[in-house]
C-alpha cells in the first residue's frame, strides 16, 4: 500500500517513512535534546542510518555504516525488542530469551571478506540460540496463528477500502513533508474509529462482529514438495470457496539462523568467527517456516468441509 517512488520506480519501504518522520517530525527533539549537546547528532544522521541512504561523499557518514546492523540485521535492536514486548502484550512466554547475556557478549567479528560484522562472543552462543528459538516459537505460535492471520487479511482490506475512499487509490500519501502530515493521521485510533463507525466496508464488519475468515486446510510448518503440490490441488478444487491463501514464505518469517556469527571471547581485535549453526545442533537443524493455509468465509465453512471430505 506504499506508493511508487517516481525516482527509481520502486515502491517506498516502511523504513523510508520512518526516516522521513525522524527528519521532519523529530528533528528538534533530537537536535535540541540536552543529551545531544556533546555529540551534535543530526536528525539526518539517524534517518540515514535507518533508511540506508548513506551520504557517500561524506566520510563520517560512510564510516557510520559499521553500525547499520544494529538497526537492521538478524541481531538488530528492533528484533531483540519486539519478541519480548509482543510476548508481554500477548500474554505468552514464547518470546523470552536472555537479552542481558546477548548485550554482555555482543562484539565485532570479521566476515569471510575481512569486513567488520556484529557478532556474539562464544560465551554467549546459548543466549543467541535462545533468541533464535524464541523467534521460531513466536512465529509459529503468535505471528502465524490462524486467527491473527485472518485479522491481518481483514485489516489490510479495511485499509485499502479506507484509502480508496479518501484518495481514490489504495495507497498511503508520499513520505514528503506534505504527505507525511496526512500519513501520520493513519494511526490505530483513526482506523479503529472508522471501523466502529461502519465506514470500513465488509471487512470492517468482519472485525466488528468477529465473523473472521476461517482456516479450513493447512500444510505442516515445513512442507515438502509433495505437501505443497497437494495444497495447490486442494486450493484448485475448492475454487471460488477460497477467500484467501495465507503463507509464511515472506522474508520476515526467515529465521536467519546462519547470519549470526560467533567469535572468540573477549577479543580485543575483531576476529573471524563461525556461524551459530555450527555451534548449535538445534539451530543447525531448524527449517524456515513455510506453512500455508486456505481461508474461507464463515458462511462457506460447511460447504468447504464437505468438499474437503470428498477430496480425501
Amino acid at each position, binding site marked *: 500500500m506504499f506508493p511508487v517512488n517516481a525516482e*527509481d520506480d520502486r515502491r517506498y519501504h516502511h523504513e523510508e517513512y520512518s526516516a522521513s518522520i525522524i527528519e521532519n517530525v523529530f528533528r528538534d527533539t533530537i537536535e535540541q535534546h540536552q543529551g545531544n549537546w556533546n555529540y551534535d547528532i543530526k536528525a539526518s544522521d539517524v534517518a540515514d542510518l535507518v533508511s540506508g541512504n548513506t551520504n557517500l561523499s561524506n566520510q563520517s557518514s560512510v564510516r557510520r555504516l559499521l553500525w547499520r546492523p544494529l538497526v537492521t540485521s538478524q541481531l538488530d535492536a528492533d528484533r531483540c525488542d519486539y519478541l519480548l514486548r509482543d510476548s508481554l502484550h500477548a500474554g505468552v512466554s514464547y518470546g523470552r530469551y536472555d537479552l542481558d547475556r546477548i548485550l554482555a557478549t555482543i562484539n565485532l567479528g570479521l566476515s569471510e571478506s*575481512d*569486513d567488520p560484522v556484529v557478532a556474539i562472543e562464544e560465551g554467549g552462543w546459548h543466549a543467541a540460540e535462545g533468541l533464535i528459538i524464541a523467534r521460531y516459537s513466536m512465529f509459529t505460535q503468535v505471528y502465524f496463528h490462524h486467527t491473527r492471520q485472518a485479522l491481518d487479511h481483514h485489516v489490510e482490506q479495511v485499509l485499502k477500502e479506507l484509502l480508496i475512499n479518501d484518495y481514490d487509490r489504495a495507497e498511503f500519501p508520499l513520505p514528503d513533508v506534505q504527505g507525511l502530515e496526512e500519513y501520520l493521521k493513519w494511526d490505530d485510533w483513526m482506523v479503529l474509529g472508522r471501523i466502529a463507525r461502519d465506514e470500513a466496508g465488509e471487512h470492517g464488519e468482519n472485525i466488528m462482529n468477529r465473523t473472521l475468515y476461517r482456516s479450513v486446510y493447512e500444510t505442516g510448518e515445513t512442507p515438502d514438495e509433495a505437501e505443497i503440490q497437494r495444497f495447490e490441488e486442494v486450493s484448485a478444487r475448492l475454487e471460488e470457496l477460497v477467500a484467501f491463501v495465507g503463507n509464511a514464505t515472506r522474508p520476515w518469517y*526467515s529465521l536467519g539462523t546462519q547470519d549470526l556469527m560467533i567469535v572468540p571471547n573477549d577479543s580485543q581485535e575483531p576476529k573471524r568467527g563461525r556461524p551459530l549453526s555450527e555451534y548449535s545442533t538445534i539451530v543447525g537443524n531448524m527449517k524456515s517456516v513455510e506453512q500455508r493455509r486456505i481461508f474461507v468465509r464463515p458462511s462457506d465453512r460447511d460447504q468447504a468441509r464437505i468438499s474437503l471430505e470428498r477430496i480425501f
Partner: protein
Amino acid sequence: MTDYNRDLMRLQLPLFLAHKLKEISPQYGKTVLMKMAYLLQEVYEVPLGYRFSLYTYGPYSSEVLADLDRSRYRGWVNVEYIEDEVGFQITLGQNAATLSELKDSFKSYEAEVEEVVENFGRFRAKELELRTTISYVWSKLGGPEEQKGNQVIESVSQLKPHFKKGEIQTALEELMEMGVVSLARK
C-alpha cells in the same frame, strides 16, 4: 512477470548458479550468491525484486539468504560451512533439477545470466564484494562522470580500509571497461 514466476526464479537462482558456476567459481557460497543476485538485478536488470542496501560488506539483501534457506530445505542445494575456506559452500542438492529443466524459469534472462557468469564467475567472495561495492557507490554518487572516479575510490576506501586504493582503482577501471558501472541503476 507474475509474482509466482518471480518467486520461482528467486528460489531456483541458487541452484541455477550452482550449475553455472560449478567449474568456474573458486568459492561459490553465500557471499558470491549475494553479489551475483545484486549484479543480475541492479546491473543487468533481471527483475528479482530484492531490496539491496549498503553495509560495510557491500550491497546486501536478507531476502537472498531467506530464499537460499528455502531452496536448501527443498533439497535443491546443499549449504555447508567449510572451516578451512572460512565460509559457506553451495553445491547441488539431492533433489536438484538439471540445468535444462531449469532453463524455462530463466529463458527470458539467459543472456544476462551468461554475461554475469562470464564476467564475474571467476572471482572470489572478497573480489566480488569490492566490485559490487564500487558499482553500488558509483550508482548512488551524483556529479559529472569524469570527476566521479576519485570520489568512488575515496568512499570505497573508507568503507573497506583493508583494500589499497590501487586495488580499488584497478577494479574500478576493469568495471568501466566492461561498461558495468555506468549500467547500475540509481
